[in-house]
């Protein structure tokens, strides 16, 4: 497991604890924003990971919104 993955799990746990979809969207879009310069400078491994994390955060946001809607 790489340091990026540990950081991702920590952020994910925080988001799950908070259950605020807006935070998850910010985290998801934030990952994409950070990935952009990394792709530009060919730091592919971290950039690729960030894209994966972003989709996980966005998925979490959608799920949280889904639960929100049902309430």
């Amino acid at each position, binding site marked *: 497991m790489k340091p990026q993955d540990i950081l991702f799990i920590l952020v994910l746990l925080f988001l799950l604890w908070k259950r605020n979809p807006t935070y998850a969207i910010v985290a998801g879009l934030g990952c*994409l924003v950070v990935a952009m310069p*990394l792709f530009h400078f060919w730091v592919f491994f971290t950039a690729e990971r960030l*894209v994966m994390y972003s989709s996980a955060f*966005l*998925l979490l946001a959608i799920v949280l*919104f*889904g639960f929100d809607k049902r309430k």
Partner: protein
Amino acid sequence: MKRLNKSYIISFILILLFLCVAFSHIFSNHLITGGDYSVLSKTYLQDVFEKSFYAWNDEYNLGQNNTPFMNYAPYRFLIGVVGNAIQFNGVVIERMFWWLPFFTLAFVSSFYFRRLLPIGELGFLSTFFFIFNSYTLMLLGGGQISGVGLAFAIAPLVLVTFIELVNKRVLKNSLMAGLLFAVQVMFDLRIAYVTMFAVLFYTLLNGKEVLLKNTIKNFLYIFIIPAGITLLLHAFWILPILIFKHNPVQQVGAAFNSLDAVSFFSFATFENSLALLHPNWPENIFGKVGFMRAEFLILPILAFSSLFFIRNEKNQKVKKHILFFALLGLVGAFLAKGVNEPFGGVYLWMFEHVPGFVMFRDPTKWYVLVVISYSILIPYSVWNTYIWLRSRSRFSIFNFQFSIKSKIFNAQNIFLLFVFCYLLFLIRPVFLGQLGGTFRQTEIPQEYTDLNNFLNDHSEFYRTLWIPTVQKYGLHSSQHPAIYGQEFFRTSNAQEVVKKLYDPKTKIFLQNAGVKYIILPFDSESEIFVTDRKYDDGVYLSVKKEIKNIDWLQEKKQFGKIIIYEMPNYKERFWSEEKDVAFNTRTRNPTHYQIAAKNGNLSGTIIFSEQYDHNWIAIANGEKIASQKHDTHFNSFQITKAPRTIDVYYSPQRWVEIGIIISISTLVIVLIYMIRIKRQ
């Protein structure tokens, strides 16, 4: 309302302008070629006109069962009928039946998104994005407009119709959804499958509403009626497949449905698919995957920003649609990357276990979901950001108060301009003329015109064998079927094909198959003789040298770099192993031949040099004779009662004809019913 109409007209003109610039070559009087695009030659169009609804395709190799590929037959037939009326003018036909319908459908279809989400005056952005993104442009550039392209263009319309059906389950909507889905299936089965996947997904998300109350009635309206209409409208090819238990997957072979093929074709990475960047953008060279371009990541940022606006949205349906399309985008991106990370094993598992998934050895077809998702989410995000900026005409930076009163130079318009310029920047290769394929104007080389004239001058039946494979402009017809060397000998190497010819058995086989000419093509499109995806004259010359060493081949004619070699003693479509036996053959159509002996009665074994298929039958004096395999490839019939003539049929054709009656009847009934409902 007037203002809205005015803005639509302006945006319509704007998109039209971009289309004219990007696709300016459509206005020329040349045939458009490139990629998988079929060259609409006069011979091709004549064949289309005469042979759309036949269960056997006799134009390629030794012929094959055509039923799994007949979904496009009604459109082919229509092309043939109009083609016949305008003297088979391919230039007009391809514009009339492919390019114009594509843009019309894409325009109308994507405009339907406005029914699902409030995107205000930015409806045109949906259309613009739907057409001008790297996936659509690569699809068009790769010459896939005739089938996949048209199915893709109609996909938003089909999806919106089904979404409306899920929300309002009435017969009228069911019939409309069924008709539209049948049209999409006609264009391409895979894109129809992708669209239905999205529909199923939407239905499951509405589980509480659809699945828990009146489940059977809901299923009837949402799935059974539309599926029933589609099946009945496509009865002409589905019926023979069902009755003869023909497995289309087996026919295409392991190269198309093995797990290795899926791994090979998974060109897109997850960042590519999420950023809607086609892996081959912009060169569109098969297998050449470019590096990730950072600027494309703004697209998912724009699309998923739409989630920010959910909280303020009061309309529950709109909320639901945003969540659905956001999820659809993520799922589409996940599937479009195929076996690549993350969780690549999921795609392999689905490929093996999910019915119908075997059609997706090329996972990029799932980009369709990403395009649909972003085409609706991006305009929604941009529109809401625009409104948000408009509501904040006053703002402060470090306690300095600013107020923008200009109607034109304000934050919201600058933002809109930025988005538009950004989208144009992404697809700049279109406007800079850097895209190949159908974006580039090419002319049919004179060598191929001369070759095709030469081949057509000899009206008797014979086959041609192309080494290593048939070139795009090469002739293939029922009377002169073309054998694709590499495909037929199951090799990807040009020299390997020539080596096969050194085997004396191959010579006998080719004579028996009716091969009169062996053709070494001129690779005008740099697609055949390539090394590292670039044309290599050395490969051409080495193949030429190898062919020269074959003593039984005589060089017959040369047109530029095209060399024609003649086979000695080639046979006709029907022949006998007995000496001095010759036949008069009358070809009624690709599925029916009448054979008579030139002298006396028929007897012994008659060999029919089409690919062996046990569904070929001969009828002699009212008695059915089953086909038996001859020499690993051909059909043969044992004639015992010495008839004067025999009829050879491909039996699935009867069910094609029954299917046509069912399809036409269904269409008439559905249309009459819909007209009645509308009048009420």
